[in-house]
């Protein structure tokens, strides 16, 4: 529970149940927002990126000794490493003012402290009596002494126990025997004290913004030929590749923009079937894409970005498995085909255990079909190679139940052989019921068709050809 100053004036306190809080604000209905830690962290990360203008090292994490498990406080703060930086801004007070102004402009109300150690800076900033507190070098200890224990980044339960013992400030804690405290409470209190006083090391971990893999080239002489543009794009890929390789990432989506001389730009997207950071396959996909792009004029500026990445995985392979040796070739082929024809033009059929012929398979995207495993139990020659959707209505002459002739496309075909019926029914749980009697029929000319009688309506249909 947290609230704006207005709410706090109305009596809202952190930890108060929601119903009680809303009752207090009955006269002015409050706007309620659920706590979103991930959103907070993302906002903090954005702020850290923004603040990199003041220090090369901005982050909220610190590293202490490995031997002691240090609880991570909720990140509501940013550490700046100001070593050698303040001079650039005209001294520490000026730098502090600049940071406060910058945060103000973003709508944040910061509390800021400059001190010898991250621990001391955190303590004084979170104490927050003034907007910015600057501790002269060497004056850390006397500034920390009067502060309450909560400023030492200690867990709440330890602070509570110490409070029961009458220890509530740093000064009182310093008077206790180190050994005694360590025995009773573990090594953390000593560590936090040392970190604040500068007797134990604490390193800042800089926040690293998510890297954008992009590259752009401005041409002195606009390029009109596809070969030239292709050459530049390949060069740009070569520049991007090391960064991807270093992070073990592969590109799955490339986005590019060719700014033409007239001011118009052509944009394109290339989807990569299997994440890779190798230049050759990516360059080939770009080339295929480029072949189909109509340029609006000579290209002045090229821009290429890797918009989506995926980890490049290692796959174990069988020593004698032919399939896996051909797998890269197959993937390369599918990548080429999809990039030129578009994904909807390809599909991999996957068997589905459904008796209704139309539903006996599903169309999976080519890149996923190989992984889908369905089992088909159909015997050779029992299903036609060509299936009509929807089935074609025909007129059939029957002798008893067996078809002896049918009319299709205004021609009468005598049936010399008919195999069937093969009754196919849909499960009752599907709602609409499908009941059909299928016959494999051979005409006098030796052509073979798949016809059925709908048992619900009694109508005959031609469903497919046994090609």
């Amino acid at each position: 529970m947290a609230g704006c100053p207005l709410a706090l004036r109305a009596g809202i306190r952190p930890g108060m149940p929601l119903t009680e809080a809303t009752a207090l604000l009955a006269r002015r209905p409050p706007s309620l927002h659920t706590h979103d830690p991930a959103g907070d962290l993302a906002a903090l990360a954005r702020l850290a990126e923004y603040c990199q203008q003041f220090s090369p090292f901005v982050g909220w994490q610190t590293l202490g000794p490995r031997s002691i498990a240090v609880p991570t406080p909720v990140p509501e703060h940013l550490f700046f490493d100001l070593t050698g930086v303040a001079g650039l801004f005209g001294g520490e007070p000026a730098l502090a003012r600049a940071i406060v102004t910058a945060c103000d402009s973003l709508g944040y109300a910061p509390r800021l402290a400059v001190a010898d150690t991250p621990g001391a800076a955190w303590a004084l900033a979170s104490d927050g009596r003034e907007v910015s507190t600057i501790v002269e070098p060497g004056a850390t200890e006397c500034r920390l002494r009067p502060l309450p224990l909560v400023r030492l980044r200690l867990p709440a339960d330890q602070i509570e126990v110490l409070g029961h013992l009458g220890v509530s400030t740093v000064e009182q804690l310093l008077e206790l025997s180190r050994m005694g405290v360590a025995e009773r409470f573990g090594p953390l209190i000593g560590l936090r004290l040392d970190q604040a006083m500068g007797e134990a090391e604490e390193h800042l971990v800089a926040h690293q913004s998510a890297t954008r893999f992009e590259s752009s080239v401005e041409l002195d002489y606009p390029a009109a030929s596809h070969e030239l543009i292709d050459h530049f794009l390949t060069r740009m890929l070569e520049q991007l590749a090391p960064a991807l390789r270093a992070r073990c990432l592969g590109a799955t989506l490339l986005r590019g923009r060719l700014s033409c001389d007239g001011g118009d730009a052509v944009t394109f997207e290339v989807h990569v079937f299997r994440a890779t950071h190798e230049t050759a396959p990516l360059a080939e996909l770009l080339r295929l894409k480029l072949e189909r792009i109509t340029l609006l004029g000579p290209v002045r500026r090229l821009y290429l970005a890797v918009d989506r990445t995926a980890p490049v995985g290692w796959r174990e392979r069988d020593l004698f498995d032919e399939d896996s040796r051909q797998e890269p070739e197959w993937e390369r082929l599918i990548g080429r085909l999809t990039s030129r024809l578009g994904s909807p033009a390809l599909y991999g059929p996957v068997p589905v255990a459904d008796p209704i012929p139309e539903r006996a398979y599903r169309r999976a995207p080519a890149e996923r079909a190989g992984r889908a495993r369905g089992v088909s139990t159909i015997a050779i020659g029992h299903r036609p190679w060509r299936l009509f959707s929807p089935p074609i209505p025909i007129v059939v002459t029957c002798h008893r139940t067996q078809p002896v002739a049918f009319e299709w496309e205004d021609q009468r075909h005598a049936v010399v052989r008919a195999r069937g019926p093969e009754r196919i029914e849909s499960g009752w749980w599907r709602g609409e019921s499908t009941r059909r009697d299928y016959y494999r029929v051979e005409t006098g000319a030796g052509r073979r068709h798949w016809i059925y009688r709908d048992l619900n309506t009694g109508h005959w249909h031609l469903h497919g050809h046994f090609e």
Partner: protein
Amino acid sequence: MISSPPSPLIEQLRQSMESCRARLPEGATPPTATGIAALDRLLPGGGIAGGSLLEILEPGPACGSHTFAAALCRPAGHRLIVFDRTDTLYPPAAFAWGWGADRLLVIRPRDDMEETWAAVQALRSPAVGAVWLWRDRLATPDARRLRLAAEEGGTLGVVFRPERDRGQPSWADVQFSVAPQPGGLRIEVTRCRGGFSRPPIDVSLDDLMHTPGGDADEAVRLPVSPALAHPAAARRATGSAPGAARRSRARRSTW
């Protein structure tokens, strides 16, 4: 006249003569027997060599051309790519022949140009066993590109053309013509590189489908191991034992 069964030696000599006649280049992949004895006798070298471009002339719908192509391509096995411009292909028929989810890809190109490009890519890839496509008109440059791509990738290319294209220029290694027959197919080799004309043969559907018991209802289908489905392994399995393909089968119709 007393007719005696042909001796194995004569048969062997006859086959090697045909290989010479087919002018197979040194080191080319040797032909794979199709497993249909009568058909193998029609073909130079006793089978179909990997990297061949085949043409099948089909007289209208429901003529059995797909079944014939499946029988030809099954030894080449592995992966099948089918170009389906009409969007009527029914993949479960191919599942039954052993081209499961991981071995079958259907491509629906928008025009001839896309189709030729994609077919060339597919034929060139060593990961593909066979490629099927349908063409009403096949321009010579396209046919030539397909032929070279098939050769490069060692892939079997099958181009289905209408029967009226008989006698038109062709770049195929072998051109077949199929016609439906009661209970089977009439197959004619209308053109063959290094071959000579022979009378058409009639093949029963059972022979094409390799259903030993006659009726597919009773046939037990054994899973084909991926290794055997691969061209090289299939060559070893069928090529070294030509007799195995000539086992007599019960002639009871599937139909």
